[in-house]
């Protein structure tokens, strides 16, 4: 049980004296503080000679009360006197919470800021893309300037390391499409069209799209976090001082790796998705595995493969671009790295899906439906 600080009130010759008892410490002051806040009578003197230990919180509470009642503090020993003086000098009325404007002003302000930011962001990203293109052209003119080691390292990280997870994901997606498709087509007695559905959908859309989402999550985020951290530790600045272009050394290898690996990964994903569909068809629809694959060859036109292969490098470019752009925008603190990484992934996936819709319309119009 704690010994709480308390007080007694003594009256003498019409002068009220508040006698504080018990230690005036942060651990014992809780009750006394609230009692004194509620205290509603004139006090002329505060006697703290009987309270033993004092710390700054105790001194503060006594001092505040004395100020409020315009009372005099007596009986302070040397230590209490020092503390009273210290807290008196440290008195302030400043706010603890940051200043905030009203909600009805804050919401439009935030929206306006977002819109302006979006405008600037789009312009800067376009500039960034231009910078990469110029650097890429310069590298074409002087191929020796290409960081070959770095490119291969990134190809390994973006492509080879992702094989297992992308393969597994596509296989499972293939199973789901075939199984769900069959359930619907069965109603017309058209289960055999499950093969058309799985084959064409995998080649045109799902293989590339799911791969793009996975690569954005795996590599787009790591580009942003890596470059962001390098910005924070001033590595990027150090590079510039030595005369190495960060775009050439850091960004270009990542962009090349993503552009090169996306078609390969997308095609690989489509293949495994078809294998997944064939497996579930063999198990539940009694379509033999070999028949499924042979039939796929007949019903999927070659241009479906081209549709997937044309989209893939564009998606790779988008992912690398937003990852690197957001990474290079980091400044200030580590919180920014996390924020920019999130933005890189969200932006990449969003742009990929928007572009995919445009591609769908475009290929339809050119007759590759």
């Amino acid at each position: 049980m704690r010994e709480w600080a308390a007080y007694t009130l003594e009256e003498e010759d019409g002068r009220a004296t508040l006698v504080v008892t018990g230690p005036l410490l942060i651990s014992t002051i809780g009750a006394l503080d609230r009692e004194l806040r509620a205290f509603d009578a004139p006090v002329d003197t505060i006697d703290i000679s009987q309270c033993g230990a004092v710390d700054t919180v105790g001194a503060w509470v006594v001092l505040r009360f004395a100020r409020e009642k315009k009372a005099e503090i007596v009986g302070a020993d040397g230590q209490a006197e020092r503390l009273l003086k210290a807290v008196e000098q440290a008195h302030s009325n400043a706010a603890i919470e940051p200043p905030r404007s009203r909600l009805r002003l804050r919401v439009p302000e935030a929206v306006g800021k977002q819109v302006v930011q979006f405008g600037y962001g789009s312009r800067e990203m376009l500039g960034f893309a231009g910078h990469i293109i110029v650097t890429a052209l310069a590298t074409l003119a002087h191929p020796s300037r290409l960081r070959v080691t770095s490119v291969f390292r990134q190809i390994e990280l973006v492509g080879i390391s992702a094989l297992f997870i992308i393969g597994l994901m596509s296989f499972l997606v293939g199973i789901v499409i075939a199984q769900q498709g069959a359930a619907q087509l069965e109603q017309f007695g058209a289960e055999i069209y499950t093969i058309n559905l799985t084959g064409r959908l995998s080649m045109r859309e799902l293989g590339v799209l799911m791969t793009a989402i996975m690569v954005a999550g795996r590599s787009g985020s790591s580009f942003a976090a890596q470059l962001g951290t390098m910005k924070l530790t001033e590595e990027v600045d150090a590079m510039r001082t030595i005369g190495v272009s960060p775009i050439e050394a850091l960004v270009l290898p990542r962009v090349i790796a993503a552009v090169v690996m996306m078609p390969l990964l997308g095609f690989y994903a489509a293949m495994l998705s078809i294998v997944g569909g064939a497996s579930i068809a063999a198990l539940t629809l009694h379509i033999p595995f070999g028949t499924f694959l042979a039939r796929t060859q007949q019903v999927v036109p070659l241009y479906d493969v081209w549709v997937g292969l044309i989209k893939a490098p564009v998606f790779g470019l988008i992912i690398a671009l937003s990852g690197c752009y957001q990474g290079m925008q980091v400044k200030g603190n580590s919180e920014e790295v996390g924020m920019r990484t999130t933005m890189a992934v969200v932006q990449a996936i969003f742009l990929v899906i928007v572009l995919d819709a445009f591609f769908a319309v475009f290929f339809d119009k050119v007759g590759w439906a």
Partner: protein
Amino acid sequence: MSDDAIEAQVAAEAIPEVAEHFDGEYPILIKGLKNSFGDQVVHEGLDLEVRRGEVLGVVGGSGTGKSVLMRSIIGLQVPDEGSIEVFGHEIVGANPEDGLGLRSRWGVLFQGGALFSTLTVGENVEVPLKQFYPELDAELMHEIARYKVVLSGLPADTASKYPSELSGGMRKRAGLARALALDPELLFLDEPTAGLDPIGAARFDELTRDLADTLGLTVFLITHDLDTLYAICDRVAVLADGKVIAIGTIPELLKSDHPWIQEYFNGPRGRAARSGAGLGKTVDSHGQTGD
């Protein structure tokens, strides 16, 4: 509400366990401490006594385990062997939950300030208050936060600013304000003046000494800064070879013949700091002899 009712309510809101005031002579008592990371032994057979009310400077070359020693004392690093008593309570092997009350009796200033970046400086100071003394009135917590900010040498309006808006020196002061939030008896400072300009560092030294004297603190101060040692430390402990090889006032240490101590205090920087502190020939007296 009557005073009795207030008292009952406050007692109900308070957490049951609170550390008692410490009256012993040695707030920190370390015996036979051993710390290692894999094959690398940092401390072996380290003994250290910190006296109540003193400012103890801890020095040593890079990698001699000054920070590891501090982390062991405050329970962030579990040592391999040895015993560490803080306020008479054994830290090594104790259940971390039991040490909760003890934690309210010490304050720690980490190297970078380690402020919570999503809270303002004032809210940072209130975090330990809310953790240990939930019974305090919200208004009292605000008042405490305000005067601790000013007490730590910051302008009053810093209380509502976020750590990212502060300079390195101000962040350290804000960290100090949080370390002092609970009126601790023991204060740990990890390189408080590192990265500060000489004027800022000297002010911080002054502030530390002032607070130690006013609040009656025991200070465990890790530093590389020779000026800090001369300006504010009562005693200095030298860490080398995994042990405390010497401890005492600076004049006592100067008599030691350990090569590291000799090099440290008698190197060009050591001599400059000594003359600055007036223990050797001062620049002024030098000028007078020239007359």
